[in-house]
């Protein structure tokens, strides 16, 4: 897939503090790309540079193969983590204004607005002021103004914070639908469950450096440890436990099964095929559970971040 956004060796310094240390990323067209990292890692600095709010000290950014230029703002939709709208301005006027700033004509903006207001069933809000809406309602408007100008690239900073589960799902479906129509989405978040759920690519930024980047499955493959979760009803419980721990590294496992069998996480030496373990186990009793332990994004996140310290 050809990248829609390429970040090349971007450096950003604030005084003596380096916010981004030669960061390079490549966001494939049509992906949902998770930009992960603890607070203060440099995610917001990077997003602001992509939005041309600030300039990088060095390095370059390509959007669709072109060097980032002012006219690109109309191709990017940005929802900052700190949500904000004019409190005393009417919803409709405000949305029109923001869409026009992004380069839409008034007529286009109006059409888009009608479409979205219809879709999210918020038609009656046109003349309401933001201060009259609840927080969740304002969030919906925030989402609408972000996507109103049909951006190619959507950058959402912590998109689900502030939404109740019903609305979060609604927005999630809208995001997936936009992706299916060809929009590329960048998620900046430290909430891993939404990443597992939606992202197909991830990048991890920590202490101003990019540590990991790639397709989610690839990253997981890289972080697999040849560990298997095993459930077995052995003939001799004590004997097996003693024997298996001399052969392999084992840990207590926590998956759920129906019976009270022996549950273990077994880590095989690198290069050892899983069927060796399975063969060994079938000799000892009835195997009820056998599955590779796939590292979660959360595991990878914590592992990488703690390794850096």
């Amino acid at each position, binding site marked *: 897939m050809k990248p829609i956004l390429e970040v090349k060796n971007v450096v950003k310094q604030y005084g003596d503090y380096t916010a981004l240390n030669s960061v390079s990323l490549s966001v494939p067209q049509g992906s949902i790309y998770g930009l992960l990292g603890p607070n203060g890692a440099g995610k917001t600095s990077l997003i*602001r540079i992509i*939005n041309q*709010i600030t300039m990088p000290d060095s390095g370059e950014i390509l959007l669709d193969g072109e060097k980032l230029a*002012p006219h690109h*703002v109309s191709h990017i939709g940005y929802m*900052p983590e700190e949500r*904000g*709208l004019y409190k005393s301005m009417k919803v409709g006027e405000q949305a029109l*204004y923001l869409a026009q700033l992004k380069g839409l004509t008034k007529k286009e903006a109006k059409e888009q607005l009608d479409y979205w207001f219809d879709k999210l069933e918020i038609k009656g809000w046109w003349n309401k002021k933001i201060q009259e809406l609840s927080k969740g309602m304002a969030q919906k408007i925030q989402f609408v103004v972000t996507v109103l100008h049909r951006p190619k690239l959507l950058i959402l900073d912590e998109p689900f914070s502030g939404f109740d589960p019903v609305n979060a799902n609604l927005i999630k479906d809208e995001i997936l639908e936009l992706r299916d129509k060809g929009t590329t989405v960048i998620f900046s978040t430290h909430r891993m469950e939404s990443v597992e759920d939606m992202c197909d690519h991830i990048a991890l930024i920590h202490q101003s450096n990019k540590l990991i980047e790639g397709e989610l499955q690839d990253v997981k493959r890289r972080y697999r440890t040849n560990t298997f979760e095993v459930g077995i009803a052995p003939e001799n419980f004590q004997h097996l436990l003693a024997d298996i721990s001399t052969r392999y590294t084992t840990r207590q496992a926590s998956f759920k099964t129906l019976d009270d069998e022996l549950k273990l996480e077994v880590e095989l030496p690198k290069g050892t095929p899983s069927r060796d373990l399975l063969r060994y186990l079938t000799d000892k009793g009835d195997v009820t559970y056998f599955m590779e332990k796939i590292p979660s994004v959360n595991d990878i996140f914590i592992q990488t971040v703690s390794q850096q310290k």
Partner: protein
Amino acid sequence: MSLSLIIKREFNAKVRNKSFIVMTFLSPLLFTAMALLVGYLASVNGDEVVKIAVHDQVGTLVKDFKNDKKTHYTDLSALPLALAKEKAAEGYEGLIYVPAVTDAKDLLHKVEYISNESPSMEFISNIEDVVNDKLTRFNLEKAGIDYKKIDEAKTDADIRLSKFSGEESLRWLNEIKIGIGFAFGYLIMMFIIIYGNMVMRSVIEEKTNRIIEIIISSVKPFQLMMGKIIGTSMAGLLQFLIWAVLGGILLFVAGNVFGLDVGATSAASPEATQAATTGMQAYLPEILNLPWGTMLLSFLIFFTGGFFLYSSIYASIGAAVDSETDSQQFLLPIILPLMLGVYVGFFTVINDPHGTVATVFSMIPLTSPIVMMMRLPFGVPLWEVALSMAILFATFFGVVWFASKIYRIGILMYGKKPTYKEIFKWLRY
């Protein structure tokens, strides 16, 4: 394109604001009501007649105290002094006691005024005038000089003022000129303070609303700042225009309805009014003769330059702080040169419109819009005006460059009150 959108939004946001509407339409009403009240109170004050009793034992002075509009004298000399005092204490403001003297000179020190409340300076000097007058005449008569002849011999010089070009000038013209200049200068100062503050508040609002990040992901911070300043100044101009029109209409209507001549003293005698009108007739061509074209054009230019210069500073302050309360420490350096402009301008220009201090202050960009406007009615060489404008606009571009740097960084800084040192550091980012 974006700029005009921003200007439009800022203008609408200001104009549709409830307090703006209330201020726009209520202020002229309040102002007119105040003017009427002051006019009414002044006329009431003027109508009051003060009753004064006189006890003149031998009738030396009693005839010289003449009743006028404000004071009414009653001769109580027929009564014994003690009784006169008693009576005066009850029904009169005070009692003038003129003792019997052997030597007329003693009058100088022996006339007394007895009252409960301290008399006004004016009143006392009136009495002294009467005594002095009497004694002077007495002395002249004693020396055998006819005081009527002296009166005839007295002259009242009236120096004619004119320019080398031959035009005749009028005595009070300078006062009128400084009045006009002051009005322009003051207007600029007021406008900067009121609407500069409005620009600052609007920046703070966007910052605390956090909408700022969305806006500047679409437009350049510089565009946003300029749009804000222009939109606000347009709303301000509209408000001033409405004030001027409404105020004018209201004063006219009120003046006719209440029959009050607001501004002029209704107590003025017919002759004085007559004199004033002839005076006005003499001054009118002179006033019309002032360089109005230059003045109005300069006003527009200085007004715009001054407002843009100051409001870009206001905008950067708004960007640097998180709330209006934090802005106080940064506002003083703005108010100070404005005040300086108005006061230094007023006192130096009236003394010497082309003196060193007035000239220098009309060149310094932070005071020039005010001071130059005060100097203009006195006729300033064109090159000076042009130079002052050039300096103003050069400074404006410099300041806007600095201000937009502070603005650009400040709007994304949250949570702490910056110091001057930190703001200085931002300039180097």
